[in-house]
């Protein structure tokens, strides 16, 4: 689960990572109250999970109350690359002496957390990595040993951070690692990590996380009841939410062919085979192992809730899943919701003959059975093309 900036910063604050003081606002009035509270100048930041918020006009500095009102009015409801802004984060302005980058990522190749630190912060780190890889200091931490202070020093010196903030950057890394482990994150990223201006003579400089990008492990939520409550309404697709509530693994795609299969790998493969046949899948839907009839009925409802769907493909290879259960579910779904689009069904594996017999007996309108995955894909592409032509 990807957190919004403010959710990440609130998590940081709980672990004593230095962050600017801020408040959440969902209306212009709340934004003004928050800005008055924090004082001017302050920063008004759109809370959506997408890069380039600043360029899109979603981050503005307000020097006084009038500017705060003007910016809050403009940003609330703004569309940033397809996401609507519902929440604002009002934050004290920071004086920036330098911009660094720091992250802890779950490195699946090395099977260890990877810490990265760079003095080239404030820009797209993938670009820095491509153009100047030496500018990013990297260090794997043995997860059984955990983060030690020397890790922080090694990274800070390797990255070439300013001498007066080496200790503070090391301490920040230690805390970010603590967030990563204790909150069970798979990504903790700060870009930019800023060096604050301090006194005019260059003393008293500190460090702060000016942004926060955190991804939490959904599988670990049973140990983190507070985090499980976090939501991002702007990023939630209603169809994906509906599927989630019904316990289905669903991803919305751009095409017009609804897909249902059992097992993630087989469904991914089905999408590819449909694309190879010239079609465009409307979704990924894994009905799971051991799918019972009611799960199938639920799944059909979710697929058909997308008005773009012109034809549906069922691709089942029964292992634990029994094909007769899938057939019963489909018959039930037709009984309850009377779909108006054609279905192509391929049943193979456990109890496939019984499943095909049930479908033949039910004689459902507009349901075609095919023997192989390839034939089924060709058929559904043909049917979808016919439907879009008519």
């Amino acid at each position, binding site marked *: 689960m990807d957190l919004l900036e403010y959710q990440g910063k609130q998590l940081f604050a709980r672990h004593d990572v230095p962050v600017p003081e801020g408040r959440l606002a969902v209306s212009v009035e709340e934004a003004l109250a928050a800005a008055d509270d924090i004082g001017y100048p302050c920063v008004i930041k759109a809370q959506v999970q997408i890069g380039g918020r600043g360029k899109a006009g979603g981050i503005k500095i307000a020097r006084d109350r009038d500017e705060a009102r003007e910016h809050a009015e403009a940003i609330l409801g703004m569309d940033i690359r397809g996401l609507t802004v519902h929440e604002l984060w009002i934050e004290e302005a920071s004086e920036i002496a330098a911009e660094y980058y720091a992250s802890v990522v779950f490195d699946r190749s090395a099977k260890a957390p990877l810490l990265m630190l760079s003095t080239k912060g404030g820009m797209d780190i993938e670009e820095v990595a491509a153009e100047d890889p030496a500018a990013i200091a990297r260090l794997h931490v043995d997860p059984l040993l955990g983060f030690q202070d020397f890790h922080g020093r090694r990274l800070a010196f390797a990255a070439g951070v300013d001498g007066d903030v080496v200790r503070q950057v090391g301490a920040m890394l230690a805390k970010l690692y603590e967030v990563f482990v204790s909150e069970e994150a798979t990504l903790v990223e700060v870009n930019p990590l800023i060096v604050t201006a301090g006194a005019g003579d260059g003393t008293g400089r500190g460090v702060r996380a000016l942004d926060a990008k955190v991804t939490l492990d959904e599988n670990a939520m049973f140990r983190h009841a507070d985090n499980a409550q976090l939501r991002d309404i702007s990023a939630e697709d209603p169809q994906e939410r509906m599927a989630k509530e019904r316990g289905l693994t669903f991803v919305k795609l751009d095409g017009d062919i609804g897909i249902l299969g059992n097992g993630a790998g087989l469904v991914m493969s089905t999408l*590819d085979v449909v694309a190879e046949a010239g079609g465009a899948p409307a979704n990924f839907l894994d009905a799971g192992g051991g799918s019972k009839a009611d799960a199938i009925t639920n799944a059909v409802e979710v697929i058909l809730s997308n008005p773009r769907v012109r034809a549906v493909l069922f691709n089942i290879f029964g292992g634990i899943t029994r094909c007769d259960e899938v057939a019963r579910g489909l018959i039930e779904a037709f009984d309850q919701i009377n779909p108006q689009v054609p279905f192509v069904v391929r049943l193979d594996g456990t109890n496939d003959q019984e499943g095909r017999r049930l479908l033949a007996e039910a004689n459902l309108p507009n349901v075609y059975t095919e023997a192989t995955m390839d034939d089924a894909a060709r058929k559904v592409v043909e049917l979808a093309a016919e439907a879009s032509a008519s």
Partner: protein
Amino acid sequence: MSILVDASTKLCVSGITGREGTFHSLRNREYGTDVVAGVTPGKGGQDVEGIPVFNTFAEAVEETAANTAMIFVPPRFAADSILEAEDAGIELIVAITEGIPAHDELRVYNILRKNGRARLIGPNCPGILSPGKANVGIIPAAFFREGNVGVVSRSGTLTYQIGNVLAQRGFGNSTIVGIGGDPVPGTDFIEVISMFEEDPETELIVMCGEIGGDAEERAAEHIAAHVSKPVVAYIAGFTAPPGKTMGHAGAIVSGSQGTARAKAQALEGKGVRVGRTPTQVAELAVSLLGAAA
């Protein structure tokens, strides 16, 4: 021959008294696997259709000399169960459980590697089938028979699909290994492919990958340098959009990393033939081995 599981496998099932645990333990036994014990804390002394249940792995191993464990407990208990099996001296641990927290997997992986006593297959995998010898897991054995094709895969049902199209062309299998769809599999493609390379019965290796991570790319390098047997690959997820987890926790294209295209290119660049569909994989197998009997 075969790899990992065979007639010498003595299986102990963690979570044997649960609904799924019981069902699959009995199916594995019916297939011919020597299921010697089960473990469910608090149910020691009971039995599941004649399979004795113990409170701890230590007791189970002491009483039955079990050498293989199958983990069927819910995700929150799975890491502990794997570590308990390893502590008791089990050499091969097959973790079927889906949804284990990533940090648990990281810890378990690193502890097992450090100790060097046990091999973990999975988690979130369908298990291992050596046709005619032993079935440890949930692979529907009826679709597979003995033969010379070794299969290693990150996905369950996709393996059945590919096994099925191979079977329709007359091929059987030495062993089918599901390494699982999670970000930190206990055993990776390279290790299983090395075992197939050493296995005299295996004449062709089929590798089923999917989007996410760089395990397929690393396997490509390994195959080019160390594998003499022909390898055919399949990669699922050419049409997967970036940033979306496609069902498996490990199946996600992040940034420019982990795309199916990059994986297929890495494999083809090292001379490994890649089927674009499961059917093409079977056709490539025919072209490499000739039509099977």
